[in-house]
């Protein structure tokens, strides 16, 4: 087995910037450059730039590509027009989540899937296995040729606009353009994992360094900061965006994870539909909830959740929220104890500080309305 860690095309830049490097899903990735708090606040107040080249990209092409994706994913791909993206999931026949993904419609017969780094190979094999014989469709794992840079924060548009030939104000949330960024062919989507306005920029590997440098230069006047996986995690947690491997996995269904809005039961058949329909009828036994600590303590993955003397679930993610300066967490609890306002206790080193189930997202982003 090949256990050598992979490096993104931006690895040398991270080293030069003095980042702390960690192993993440088989990749040597920057966890922080300065401090998580600093980087987190830069994104919430102005702009941050992330290397997310470890994410996987899989192209699905052919006359029957749409039909194949309708079967493979739970959202309704037929609603996508060219230059639009969609959040979706692949489930297995039992309704468990194989991965949560973004689907880009490049054309009627060409789609790009952005998948989690830890799942890229698994997803690719899953897709190949589930392509119906005789259909005009093929899949290709192009992950090793693509670099991805995420630019997040209210000044992201201004920073990217200076080096891009497309009018970014025309790209709506969850839409994208093929355009030039600093003269390089790129896919630019208004998407992200922070709750802030922002973009994700896909380029060929060999241009990643050049684009990163240009964006850093362009963002200087806005105080742009490179942001590592540490702040990426606290930013997404404040929004209660699930992280595959923590909050969702092949042991959870979209319904339990509060992602029923993604599942389109009326679109025709898809893998997992029958099981999910049955679960919907039966009702879920557990639900993914967000909670705030009332008493002192920081929740962490795998800590047990109690209600009195009864164990009712487990924490899947938790941290001290840099924006709210409160300890927050998400986790699964029994459905009948998942109501907003419910008081629970978290087993933190055998003490049981109180917490309360709250509405999410935890953090309310100041949205600038785009007309």
């Amino acid at each position, binding site marked *: 087995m090949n256990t050598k860690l992979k490096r993104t095309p931006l690895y040398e830049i991270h080293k030069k910037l003095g980042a702390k490097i960690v192993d993440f899903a088989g990749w040597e990735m920057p*966890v*922080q450059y300065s*401090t*998580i*708090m600093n980087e987190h606040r830069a994104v919430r107040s102005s702009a941050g730039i992330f290397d997310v080249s470890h994410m996987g990209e899989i192209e699905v092409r052919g006359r029957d590509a749409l039909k194949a994706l309708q079967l493979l994913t739970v959202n309704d791909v037929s609603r996508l027009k060219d230059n639009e993206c969609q959040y979706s999931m692949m489930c297995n026949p039992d309704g468990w989540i194989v991965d949560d993904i973004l689907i880009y419609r490049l054309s009627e017969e060409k789609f790009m899937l952005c998948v989690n780094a830890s799942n890229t190979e698994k997803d690719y094999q899953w897709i190949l296995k589930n392509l119906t014989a005789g259909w005009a469709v093929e899949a290709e794992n192009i992950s090793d040729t693509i670099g991805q840079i995420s630019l997040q924060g209210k000044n992201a548009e201004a920073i990217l606009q200076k080096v891009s030939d497309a009018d970014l104000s025309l790209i709506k949330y969850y839409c994208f353009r093929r355009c030039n960024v600093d003269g390089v062919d790129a896919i630019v989507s208004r998407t992200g994992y922070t709750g802030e306005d922002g973009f994700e920029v896909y380029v060929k590997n060999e241009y990643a360094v050049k684009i990163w440098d240009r964006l850093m230069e362009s963002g200087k006047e806005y105080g742009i900061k490179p942001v590592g996986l*540490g702040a990426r*995690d*606290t930013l997404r947690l404040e929004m209660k965006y699930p992280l595959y491997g923590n909050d969702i996995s092949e042991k959870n269904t979209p319904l339990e994870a509060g992602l029923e809005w993604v599942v389109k039961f009326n679109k025709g058949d898809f893998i997992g539909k029958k099981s999910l329909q049955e679960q919907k009828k039966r009702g879920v036994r557990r639900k993914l909830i967000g909670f705030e600590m009332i008493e*002192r*303590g*920081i929740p*962490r993955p795998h800590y047990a959740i109690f209600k009195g003397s009864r164990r009712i679930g487990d924490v899947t993610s938790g*941290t*001290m929220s*840099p924006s709210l300066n409160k*300890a927050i967490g998400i986790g699964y609890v029994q459905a009948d104890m998942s109501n907003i306002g419910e008081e629970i206790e978290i087993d933190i*080193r055998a003490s049981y500080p109180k917490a309360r189930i709250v509405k999410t997202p935890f953090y309310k982003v100041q949205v600038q309305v785009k007309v």
Partner: protein
Amino acid sequence: MDYPDDLLYTKEHEWIKVEDNRAKIGITDYAQHELGDIVFVELPEVGSEVVAMEPFGVVESVKTVSDLYSPVSGEVVEINSELESMPETVNSNPYDKGWMITVEMSDKEELKELLSADAYAKYVEEESE
């Protein structure tokens, strides 16, 4: 990195300042830097016993949870309760305002096991290579 000469150190990155039979304990500049933003410190109660090289508390950064190891055995006679509301003091001032507990030592022989500032600096250098 700063490692004051008048302190002794552990390989778990705690420092100890000895005055007669009492020892003040905290974590080193290297430790606070490696941990990053410290957001939570859990200390033992005054009157409890600590044992050399066994955990006496917990320090948490945004991402990590780490045990604190006592350099010596004895009774906790004082704790820095200000860290409850201002844990970030450990980052900004690890050797002074960021101290954690004071212990009445039960066996001063244990001090012989600890590292000098020079030896600790060398150890850190080797470890971070």
